[in-house]
């Protein structure tokens, strides 16, 4: 059985107290719990503080361009369905430039786990408003307060077709790990929005601020995450900030739908040695 240490890589460079530490530890615990071999683990990230995460995990990492981690992760999984593919980035990366990819990855139900470390601020560029910042939020680029409404990633995922939708909180590492385990085990697009405070640039949305407001939907005894309709209802009726697993349903993944044989691993084909007969057959169309 693997342990946390088996996934150690270079030392994180985040600010002390950053919510992302809990995400990193929770992910490593989840990998160990699921006994995932690092060679079969791919973590794809975008750009931002949180997107540095794959440098801190022993795995095959892909640190791409801003906002485009989901197309990369989608293709990695299709190219080699044997891999465990995690996408991880921030709220700016995922909900600004990455917004359309998020919706399309959700509706494709590609078998990838997507984690958004949501701190409601731009940290790497030192304190500008983010798509999840609350109205009135004063930052360097919104000196008179943000005039826009925040994006709700959970709501978007539910409406777009993601088959596993959850929200976690960096202040509750144990529960976060449990959510990650379920998300990774889930077949299909699993999305976890993690409330992950920035201790340097966001003085409003602190650990204490969240603790006062979050409401765990699991505490509502009758809640059953198998219905998308109920999940949406829940999201809009809970007082405060709902956290927990909203939806967990099994539907065909993108790979199962589009690959002729979803267990076929394209990367293992020896393309150097070709049987030319299938090509000749296609060429007949043009004779």
């Amino acid at each position: 059985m693997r342990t946390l240490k088996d996934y150690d890589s270079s030392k994180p460079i985040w600010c002390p107290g950053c919510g992302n530490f809990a995400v990193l530890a929770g992910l490593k615990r989840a990998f160990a719990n699921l006994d995932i071999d690092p060679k079969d683990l791919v973590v794809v990230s975008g750009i931002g503080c949180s997107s540095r995460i794959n440098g801190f995990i022993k795995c095959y990492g892909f640190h791409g361009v801003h906002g485009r981690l989901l197309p990369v992760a989608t293709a990695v999984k299709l190219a080699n369905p044997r891999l465990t593919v995690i996408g991880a980035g921030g709220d700016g990366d995922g909900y600004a430039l990455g917004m359309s990819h998020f919706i399309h990855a959700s509706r494709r139900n590609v078998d990838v786990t997507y984690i958004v470390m949501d701190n409601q601020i731009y940290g790497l560029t030192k304190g500008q408003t983010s798509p999840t910042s609350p109205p009135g939020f004063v930052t360097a680029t919104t000196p008179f307060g943000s005039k826009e409404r925040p994006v709700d990633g959970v709501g978007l995922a539910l409406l777009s077709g993601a088959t596993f939708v959850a929200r976690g909180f960096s202040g509750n590492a144990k529960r976060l790990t449990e959510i990650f385990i379920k998300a990774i085990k889930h077949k299909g697009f699993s999305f976890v929005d993690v409330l992950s405070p920035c201790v340097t640039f966001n003085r409003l949305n602190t650990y204490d601020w969240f603790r006062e407001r979050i409401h765990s939907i699991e505490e509502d005894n009758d809640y059953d995450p198998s219905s998308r309709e109920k999940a949406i209802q829940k999201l809009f009726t809970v007082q405060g900030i709902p956290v927990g697993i909203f939806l967990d349903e099994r539907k065909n993944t993108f790979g199962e739908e589009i690959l002729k044989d979803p267990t076929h691993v394209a990367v293992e084909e020896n393309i150097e040695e070709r049987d030319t007969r299938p090509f000749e057959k296609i060429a007949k169309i043009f004779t």
Partner: protein
Amino acid sequence: MKENDISVRIGGQAGDGSLTTGDLLAKALKRVGLWVVTTKDFPSRIRGGHTNYTIRAKHKRIYGPADYIDFLVAFDYESFPAHTKEITSGGVVLYDNSIVKEIPEEYRRDDLTYYGAPVAKLAREELGLEVIKNTVLLGVLGELLGIPNEIEEVIEETFLARKGRKVFEKNVKAFRLGKNLVGSLFNKKDDYRINPITKSSDRERLLLAGNYAIALGAIVAGCRFYAGYPITPATEILEFLAEHLPAFGGAAIQVEDEISAINMVLGASFAGVRAMTATSGPGLALMTEAMSLSGMAEIPAVIVDCQRAGPSTGLPTKSEQGDLNHAIFGGHGDFPRIVIAPGHAEEAFYLIQVAFNLAEKYQLPVIFLTEQSVAQNKQTVLNFEFDRIPVERGKLLKPGDPALRGKIERYGPVEDSIPPRPRPGLEGGLFLSEGNEHDFTGHPSENPEIRKINQLRRNSKVKKAVDDVPKPEYEGHLDSSIGIIGMGATYGPIVEAMEELEEKKIKTHYLRLVTLWPFPEKDVKAFIKNKKKIFVVEQNATAQLRQLIQRFVGPSEKIESITKFNGRSFVASDIYEKILSRVEEVLV
């Protein structure tokens, strides 16, 4: 008698069936052993408006349209003002006189033969289906050209297999109805005739547009992942691969935008699968950020740009060569890339396979620059040799590779500048594929020494590829003092212009750049050195190719541009006339 050399233009309203008629005719002409080129001229709209389709066939190899029409087949009035001028003396007009009741006087010419056949009326009255009029007209045309049986064979194949017996029978009936009009309604008075010359090997020839050659070539090269966004004139590649890749265990998917497409290509390629995307200028612009990532993180990528006339949305259905600068110089930061351009559909099939080899061998983006005319016009090609281009995967590591047992430096400073490339799933190969500047394992690093080493190594790959990329192709006379330089789709018209010049005893020598980047400096300098005059032929307004050449050879009065940028492709006479007009001065 004008035998086995014909240019037929079919004009009509969108929906008249000009394309179907033309395709059937083209296929039959290919089958009888002629070399065929088809040219679509259609507006960028969905329905309505005049469209035309030109089918040229000749007993010898051709690559582009002619600059004249022998046969005008007119379904509508608009065909007359649009095309009458281009008909060669002694040519023929075959028109639907149930639609065009009378040809306006100003478009009547004494030197042409006119045949009127009421095909719409006959289709409606005799067959109860007016839309089948195009097949009736094809019957007339087939009989006039002398290949009715050959066309009927193509009709059978096309309709019986794809549309079912009922549709097939209706079309055969329509075809024969048209065929029998010759001799009953009017007699053949023109000189044109097709005389089948088919040898058994000719049947193996293919008739296809460059987009299909590219798509098929990609499959042969082992491409198993394709992501793209529909855009004229590249969409056929996505459509074809969506149909055929699954059978090879791959997938071709339509994604949300070109940015997603290129990032998916990088993801699949990082995972170890050969991957490609195709687009046109607007899409290439969107892909540019990720092209830079491909160069930085050293992830192979094949990007096809089927160029259309820009800037911006430009002329979406027209051909141009205006993306050259973008393909070579577009992107932020210094990163290596290779840009190659096929001259015709047959070459595109092989060259796209070379593109995959180069991308993996040098671990960089390869931009495959083609044009709407090559991408979408059909042409006869020799049957493809499927094992001509071996698959070379460079330093992609395989399970059990000894390198995986030691310490792998994905971005290490190796002698040949190309480090080993593990892929996920391989034991011992873990690394971070990184767009930030990075150390030798891939972890972000701002160390100035490492930065310098990496920049030099990455960018040196282009220099190291110089002798490995496809060489320029030459035609004509080595000792001629008149040189022509071109790239891509101008190949056909240049070669024909050279033949016409030779008939006037003017010898020329032609260098076609297949690889545009790394620029084949030595070859081009050597070519220019012994010439008195160089004509750089290209289809854009700012002479991008000439400027590229002069970047290397310096300013020179020897070099002159022949450009065309009115949204229409070059024809031989554009080049022939320009060179002829300058030849006296040049040769003095």
